């Protein structure tokens, strides 16, 4: 290590010291000086410190090359040490998290996907955001049943074995909670993209098209207008799905990213209603009833309704409109140095594909069109990137998505002019990350 450095918060520090965290530097220093006892003591101190409990144990820091690192000089564990692999222990910062104070208990709560740590468009299943209303049921798939009835010729009771015999499809779609970004309707409330946009995930789902099942039961083509979907959890959550969606691309899903659904995401069966707010994608699906009128369920009256300035609630809002956000650099982060940065983020629309994404670094005064990563799929996350040279001056990063219908993501001012500030749901406004001269990035809203 060529230079002696003191880790001072807020200073931009060159490599190599900066490539490890201040905590790791502290742990490594005694070892570097060759005092193994010191290193062990430091490690013990780390383990005892509550706030640092998540930091992985780091190897003693030695400059390599020229040193040959310890992992090169020993035999490692063999194959199938873990029958089901887990992320590296050095990735322990990458966690679903809850927003403190949002809900009093975890059983009716939400956890957020750490978008700031993710690449590409697929959300690892273990990081998919969660929203439960009565906690997570543990369902025995052999005993799970799906009942389809109502305005049908042949009511049907299906086991998982039955369901998995039907012709299947695999499709990549996003799921976004209707309340995603809801805490920001009035003003800035939370620090990072995990909390502003993390009720969002994108997976490859495998299952049976609902239209296949509706044909199988002989649904009443003349009178069927809506489908009720119901969960098998303690809240027996219900949502009304319009027949237009049901016959188009709604899926009854058991597979997620190549394996079965995770328990917290609906194991063994869930509905996926592409492009429609998360609550309609009913987890732990046990029943589908075909009907001629909407059900006016609790989750379509007391919640998931948009309060407008005239005091009227919009009911059955579902389509998640065109939206995008920059995930790096983003709120709560610090740029390590001036120079080249790749600005990257995600764009999506419940109305179809993303046509284009523009990025501004001056708070929306001027825009450049970003590169969009293939594949660009309908009702799926789309990754965008653009080059940026940070010269150390203040900057305001924004992204603006346009979907295939030509709809352009709105500004906060445009959205609030129609919907006011009390809505809670369906906030798809352009977000702003303020880059300060010290390299810190913070969530702001512009006037």
């Amino acid at each position, binding site marked *: 290590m060529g230079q002696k450095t003191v880790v001072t918060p807020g200073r931009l520090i060159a490599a190599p010291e900066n490539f490890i965290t201040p905590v790791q530097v502290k742990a490594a220093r005694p070892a570097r000086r060759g005092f193994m006892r010191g290193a062990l003591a430091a490690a013990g101190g780390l383990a005892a410190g509550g706030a640092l409990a998540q930091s992985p144990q780091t190897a003693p820091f030695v400059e390599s090359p020229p040193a040959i690192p310890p992992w090169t000089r020993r035999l490692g564990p063999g194959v199938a040490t873990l029958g089901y692999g887990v992320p590296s222990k050095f990735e322990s910062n*990458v966690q679903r998290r809850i927003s403190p104070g949002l809900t009093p208990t975890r059983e009716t709560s939400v956890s957020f996907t750490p978008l700031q740590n993710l690449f590409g468009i697929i959300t690892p299943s273990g990081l998919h955001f969660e929203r439960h209303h009565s906690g997570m049921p543990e369902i025995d798939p052999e005993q799970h049943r799906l009942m389809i009835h109502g305005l049908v010729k042949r009511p049907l009771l299906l086991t998982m074995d039955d369901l998995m015999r039907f012709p299947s499809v695999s499709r990549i779609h996003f799921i976004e909670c209707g309340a995603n970004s809801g805490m920001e309707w009035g003003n800035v409330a939370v620090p990072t993209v995990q909390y502003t946009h993390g009720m969002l995930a994108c997976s490859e789902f495998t299952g049976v098209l609902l239209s296949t099942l509706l044909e199988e039961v002989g649904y009443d083509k003349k009178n069927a207008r809506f489908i009720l979907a119901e969960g098998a959890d303690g809240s027996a959550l219900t949502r009304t799905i319009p027949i237009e969606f049901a016959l188009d691309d709604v899926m009854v899903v058991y597979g997620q990213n190549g394996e079965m659904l995770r328990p917290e995401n609906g194991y063994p069966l869930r509905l996926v209603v592409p492009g429609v707010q998360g609550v309609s994608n009913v987890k732990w699906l046990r029943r589908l009833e075909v009907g001629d009128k909407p059900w006016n369920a609790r989750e379509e009256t007391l919640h998931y309704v948009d309060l407008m300035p005239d005091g009227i609630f919009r*009911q059955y809002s579902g389509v998640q409109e065109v939206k995008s956000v920059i995930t790096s650099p983003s709120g709560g982060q610090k740029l390590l140095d001036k120079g080249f940065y790749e600005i990257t983020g995600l764009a999506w629309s419940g109305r179809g594909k993303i046509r284009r994404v523009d990025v501004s670094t001056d708070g929306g005064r001027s825009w450049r069109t970003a590169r969009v990563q293939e594949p660009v799929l309908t009702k799926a996350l789309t990754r965008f990137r653009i080059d940026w040279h940070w010269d150390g001056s203040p900057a305001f990063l924004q992204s603006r998505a346009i979907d295939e219908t030509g709809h352009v993501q709105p500004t906060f001012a445009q959205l609030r002019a129609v919907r006011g500030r009390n809505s809670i749901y369906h906030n798809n406004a352009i977000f702003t990350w303020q880059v300060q001269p010290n390299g810190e990035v913070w969530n702001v*809203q512009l006037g």
Partner: protein
Amino acid sequence: MSSSVNRQTVAAVVAALLAGTVAAQTKPAATDAPRFGFGRTPTAEQIKAWDIDVRPDGHGLRKGKGTVAQGQEIYDTQCASCHGVFGEQINFHQTPLVGGATAADVKAGTVAEFKKSNALRTTTNKLNYATTLWDYINRAMPWTNPQSLTVDQVYAVTAYILNMANLVPESFELNERNILEVQMPNRNGFTTNHGMRLVGGKPDTANTTCMSNCAPAPKVVSDLPDYARNAHGNLAEQKRPLGPVRGIDTTRYESGGTAVASAAPAAAPAAGPQPKDLAARNVCTACHGINNKIVGPGFTEIAAKYAKREDGEAYLAGKIKAGGVGVWGQVPMPAQPGLSDAEAKVLAKWILGGAK
């Protein structure tokens, strides 16, 4: 959305081909038989047992009745601990059951309160139909013991809540007929006339793709208050420590000061036999706060009560396993058959030690 565009994607092409193949191979005969024939026909009894939904037009309503007075008895023992004796509780679900509507609102069918910013939103001032209240109590309440009330009990509790909201008189008996006539204050307060219901709907906004000189110089009108800097835990621990950026160490300021103490870091609980994890995994924490009552008493309240009792640990372990009622109130704590004796002991010891 255009289906021809969709099919340009590889996944969709594969799906379309697959669906086409299946359709070709299994094209139904002219008869009305099912195409695949998987599964069973549910019996009438099976359908009845699961078909619990109720619509505002009365579809699905079950015959039954219950009075306000009967409802109060059930409410006080099974509902009040969460929702408050007068339906006023706002901590639990952030929505009180009653309040926020006037007699004039009931007459008009819309609630003036909702035009205010930070309007008081309650179950009964927001709902348009009493059937939705009945349906949710029937399917999901009491929260820790759902689908345990009889049909008549659900009518009774619904009647009592409607009475607390001044929507039915104290002498009222609710049944499957008059529930359709209850005039909720917000019955005209909903609209489906908007562009976000279906994919082809018209958006509210019409932003343009202006590329230069689009906006005035940026002026920050809202940012994170200083006291909230560390409210989500240390952001340095929420970003992978690799790559061009790091999470900000929000426990410190550049000037060297220490930030306001953070709330508990919000990480998902780590797996492991820690008593705290055990409590979370077995959903003890749904009803017991560390220091505060949620449904049942807080853990430190329990510790204070039994600290001096010699067999406190064994007694508590037994209570945790077997459940009980009457010690702290009339809301029963369910038995925990899934918990081993050893786990119950670990929890008892942890609770008596102050639940740290």
